[in-house]
């Protein structure tokens, strides 16, 4: 359990301050990309694409875009903070302190989760201003938080096991991004052939988008209850995986 509370608080706030200190790189890009999507799909393509589940296409894709931003930011923050500390030799200065593996992991996860959540909340505001309804604000924010937390945990795990920026980029480009696109940002998985639909059913990002789509628009591919439970289980498992990996000391203690 956590007992070095001062240390835990210090590292968590360092992780949060780290990304706030470079907010132009960590907060603005997500906001700008979302505005571009809204502009392109809303102004240019709106009339050429039909509605999905009775929702205009421009609005239908917003929860997915929001989740993609949350996922990218949360993963990138924890992963790059860990890898950067490793490469810049600051990690040993952290590992020699009386912080337990649990305290270390949770602090990195909090950093990533806060960045994911801040991005998510800002984009939610933009989406709302662009006309996206928010059916249930509580579950909207809760699902953003859960997804943020889960992917921050995975990011930490990836960061710990990576040796270089190349490896990190490889995972971002060939795992996270494809899974996001295949999770149903731009379409309902009902539009897919059966085999592709079945694959989507084991993609955590599909449930992340589905939960948020239901909490905001009131429509979704999976039932709200099952996708929400999936997210809670996924968050728990990814946290345990990150903490356990930290405890092994793999690639950080030799």
């Amino acid at each position: 359990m956590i007992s070095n509370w001062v240390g835990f608080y210090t590292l968590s706030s360092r992780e949060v301050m780290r990304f706030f200190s470079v907010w132009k790189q960590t907060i603005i890009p997500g906001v700008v990309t979302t505005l571009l999507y809204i502009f392109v799909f809303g102004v240019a393509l709106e009339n050429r694409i039909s509605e999905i589940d009775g929702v205009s296409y421009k609005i239908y894709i917003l929860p997915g875009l929001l989740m993609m931003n949350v996922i990218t930011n949360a993963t990138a923050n924890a992963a790059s903070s860990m890898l950067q500390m490793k490469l810049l030799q600051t990690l040993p200065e952290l590992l020699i302190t009386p912080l337990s593996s649990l305290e270390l992991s949770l602090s990195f996860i909090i950093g990533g989760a806060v960045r994911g959540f801040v991005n998510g909340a800002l984009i939610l505001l933009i989406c709302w201003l662009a006309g996206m309804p928010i059916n249930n604000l509580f579950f909207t924010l809760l699902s953003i938080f859960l997804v943020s937390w889960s992917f921050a945990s995975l990011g930490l795990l990836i960061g710990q096991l990576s040796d270089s920026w190349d490896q990190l980029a490889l995972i971002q480009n060939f795992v996270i991004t494809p899974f996001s696109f295949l999770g149903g940002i731009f379409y309902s998985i009902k539009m897919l052939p059966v085999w592709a639909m079945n694959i989507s059913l084991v993609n955590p990002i599909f449930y992340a988008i589905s939960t948020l789509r239901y909490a905001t628009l009131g429509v979704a591919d999976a039932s709200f209850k099952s996708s929400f439970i999936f997210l809670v289980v996924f968050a728990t498992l990814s946290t345990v995986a990150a903490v356990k990996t930290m405890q092994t000391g793999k690639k950080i203690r030799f």
Partner: protein
Amino acid sequence: MENLGIEIVNLHKKYDDVHAVQGIDLSIKKGEFYGLLGPNGAGKSTTINSITSLVKPTSGNIKILGKDIVSDFRYARSQVGIAAQELSNDWFFPLEDLLYYQAGFYGVTRKDAQQRIEYILEKLGLYEHRKKKMRMLSGGMKRRLQIAKALVHDPQILILDEPTAGVDVELRHDLWKYLKELHAEGKTILLTTHYIDEAELLCERVGIIDQGKLIVEDTVKNLKSMVNKSGIVIHTKDRGLNLDQLLDDFKPSITHNRIEILTKTPNIDLPKIILKLSENNVIIEDIQLPQASLEDVFLELTGRKIND
């Protein structure tokens, strides 16, 4: 043992096919200034990184102030400050913040750390640079910052891994002076170095480590006396008398007017030799007392030079 700062028992570390540390035992008393001397790759860093748990030993036990570093890791780590050999870097925060963070990791609140951090910044000549980020610091300043980080939580034990590697002469002397002060305050200091003069100047006891083994440890003075190289060199005005016969007791080697005598006790032998030469009207032009160095000790024990 109550009065030990660091206690290492039978430490082994194997990396795949390399047996980097092969059964090291080390007991460093509280308040002692101990030097671990050895060539690059001898196992010095592996040993000290085992103390700070950056290295997971293959076998062996380590205690800090009597507490095990695994079962009592919070206490053990809170009592140790370490300045690593590799300089760290940070892109985000001014160095003052870095020190507050470092203190925080050890459980020291910002308020409690303030006075100490200001003192350390001042002491290490970093106060005026406290608002700068690390990329604006010179190499020497980064080295000082690293030592400052090791001291923020006021540890009883300070471990310095090659603290003066790549540091200019002036800064090296400043650091030595500061380390002496810290030692005088009662800190236990473990220093690794491959600079002979550094170990000779600072350390009360020195352990020489080579190929993963501690091959000898003793005070600098005792180590030097192990080597029969402390000697006396005398130049006389002319060869004159039969010097060989005259100084037969001291087994001199004489070439022209140069007499060289190897002895472990030059302070006792020198007056006798001077007396003998004077009695026989040999005029002495010059006397030298070349000292054995730890380098000679290393050479004698391993047959190699330390920095080869």
